[in-house]
């Protein structure tokens, strides 16, 4: 069952400064479906458009970010909401109760001069204006308890908590209304490896208990391998491969995905690894055709002329590559 359908979204950053116009094509034609009860990972490096995609999914589109085309359709409890067309009030109803957002550096989400309890109160009151403080206290404590967070957190200021604790508080905030969709943008980037494990376990447990949809955006392939059910790889504003995690890591088909996974070193193995030559393209001026072609060892003439479409080559497996599509066509 589809919870979210993204149809050919194009979102660009458009600005003019001192007569110089900039048009950064951050998300350039992305289509994907999110199912209920799954963890979907969005992988990719910096400036691949993944953070912009999340912003679009959350409806946080403000100039200079503009949606130039496409649709973002939520299907929740029988309601269909198109984020690109919705008005501010509908979006407000949607946000936090149905769809919540854990940002990169959630530390900054917490007001440094207020106790955590007050932040929770503000959030709760904003979305449930009629709640009374006794009920709020009970609900919040119960929620924190379920998440394994000590109740003393409520009486603390943000600076008294460690980075990992703050992130877990941010997760608690994001899940207090049991939303159907949680969007997490680099939820563990600034955290230590041990704390990261704890935070990711927490997210996984929440998803398993509430059976909602969790979208994790991160460049760390290790996180996807360990947590996600399905993963979509983005490169230069486009989705280049998508499939179940086991299959993608077991047999990556897109040259970019393949190189990315194979270049990562692992403990116990000192054999040589190679990076990918070149650099991710400038999204204000991307290369024609397939955006990966300047760095692709298998590039053919057609790759610089025509952009490959994201096609389904097997059940649950999509790929945007002339070479891979042809190979699989031959195999099947």
């Amino acid at each position, binding site marked *: 069952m589809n919870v979210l359908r993204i149809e050919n979204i194009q979102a660009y950053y458009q600005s003019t400064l001192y007569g110089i116009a900039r048009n950064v094509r951050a998300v350039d034609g992305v289509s994907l479906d999110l199912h209920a009860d799954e963890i979907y990972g969005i992988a990719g490096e910096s400036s691949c458009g993944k953070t912009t995609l999340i912003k679009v999914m959350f409806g946080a589109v403000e100039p200079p970010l503009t949606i130039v085309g496409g649709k973002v359709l939520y299907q929740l409890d029988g309601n269909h909401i198109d984020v690109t067309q919705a008005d501010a009030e509908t979006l407000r109803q949607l946000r936090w109760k149905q769809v919540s957002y854990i940002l990169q550096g959630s530390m900054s989400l917490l007001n440094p001069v207020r106790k955590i309890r007050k932040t929770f109160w503000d959030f709760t009151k904003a979305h449930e204006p009629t709640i009374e403080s006794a009920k709020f206290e009970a609900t919040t404590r119960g929620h924190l308890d379920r998440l*394994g967070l000590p109740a003393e957190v409520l009486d603390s200021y943000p600076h008294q908590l460690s980075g990992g604790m703050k992130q877990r508080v941010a997760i608690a905030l994001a899940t207090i209304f049991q939303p159907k969709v949680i969007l997490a943008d680099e939820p563990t980037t600034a955290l230590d490896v*041990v704390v990261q494990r704890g935070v990711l*376990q927490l997210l996984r447990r929440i998803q398993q208990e509430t059976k909602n949809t969790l979208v994790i955006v991160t460049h760390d392939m290790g996180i996807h391998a*360990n947590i996600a059910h399905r993963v979509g790889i983005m490169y230069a504003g486009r989705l280049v491969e998508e499939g179940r995690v086991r299959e993608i*890591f077991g047999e990556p088909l897109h040259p970019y995905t393949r190189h990315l*996974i194979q270049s990562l070193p692992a403990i116990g193995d000192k054999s040589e*690894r190679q*990076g990918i030559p070149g650099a*991710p393209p400038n999204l204000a001026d991307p290369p024609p055709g397939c955006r990966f072609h300047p760095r692709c060892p298998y590039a053919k003439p057609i790759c610089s002329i025509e952009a490959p479409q994201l096609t389904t080559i097997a059940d649950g497996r999509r790929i945007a590559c002339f070479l891979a599509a042809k190979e699989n066509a031959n195999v099947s």
Partner: protein
Amino acid sequence: MSHDKALLSIQNITKIYSVGGLFSRERISAVADVSLTMSAEEPEILTLAGESGSGKTTLARMVLRLVEPTSGRILYKGRNIIGIRNRKEQMEFMQDIQPIFQNPFETFNPLKELDRYLFETARNYRGREEQSIDQRIESVLNLVGLSMEEIRGRYPHELSGGQLQRVSVARALIASPLLLVADEPVSMIDASLRMSVVNLFKSLKDEHKVSIIYITHDLATAYYISDRIAIMLRGHIVEIGPVRKVLVEALHPYTRLLKESILQPHAEASWDEEITLSTMEAREFTRLGCKFAGRCDSRLPICEVSDPPITHVDEREVKCWLYVEQEKHRVVSSL
């Protein structure tokens, strides 16, 4: 190893910071009585690994003389670098030891062209061979896989993180240093560009005989390029030894925890055990006894009370009561 043969000898280095307000000041040991030696005979890559707050960056900054230690000595080729005041000695020191910083976009002034740094460095330091400034710069750029044409007149924002970091390495190499201190040099670079910079460090040691102190929290890349690795926790080195030993057959419980928490990018991998995170991690700093005791599954009574000594076990040095003979026997006999 005798100190004459040592390139760098860090002896009982401690750095204490006072934090807190007017009424409650706490003294935190960012680096606590750390000793470490790097040989002058064989170049090596030594990794300082640990999480944030482990003291690895503070230790590196003390080696680079960007921070002054509270106590202890750092001997470079037998001379204590801590008291250096005059410019001549400072320049001699910097000729041999150069830094690579974490954020390539901060390493260079965004308003200045990159080649100006290269020319400046070349003018200020003698090279080891007879070469013109242009030749020296071109040769280091080639070494890192770049050329003067690509860099000339360019500003930092025109290059990718990977390229910038390579320029940073090139700049450091112009002085022909013997030791590079690299603070998380690839953590801010995209995954697809990372390995080329990591491989560059490897070749610097293998082919150009440059020793490297490599600081990271990423144990996978540490395994890939290091010879020795030191695991740091709250200012202490808890385990140090050859990388194959330390990471594959971890002795210290903290090393084991770090290893297990690593996310391997394989589909089969996944942790089974849930770990419990400590609530106020900062409290670990002020613990008596072993800093890890609060989280350690194998803790002994003495761990809460007394700081463990360093013992030599199986090619490594470990700071843990579990490996101190008398303690082990005491535990066994009490069972």
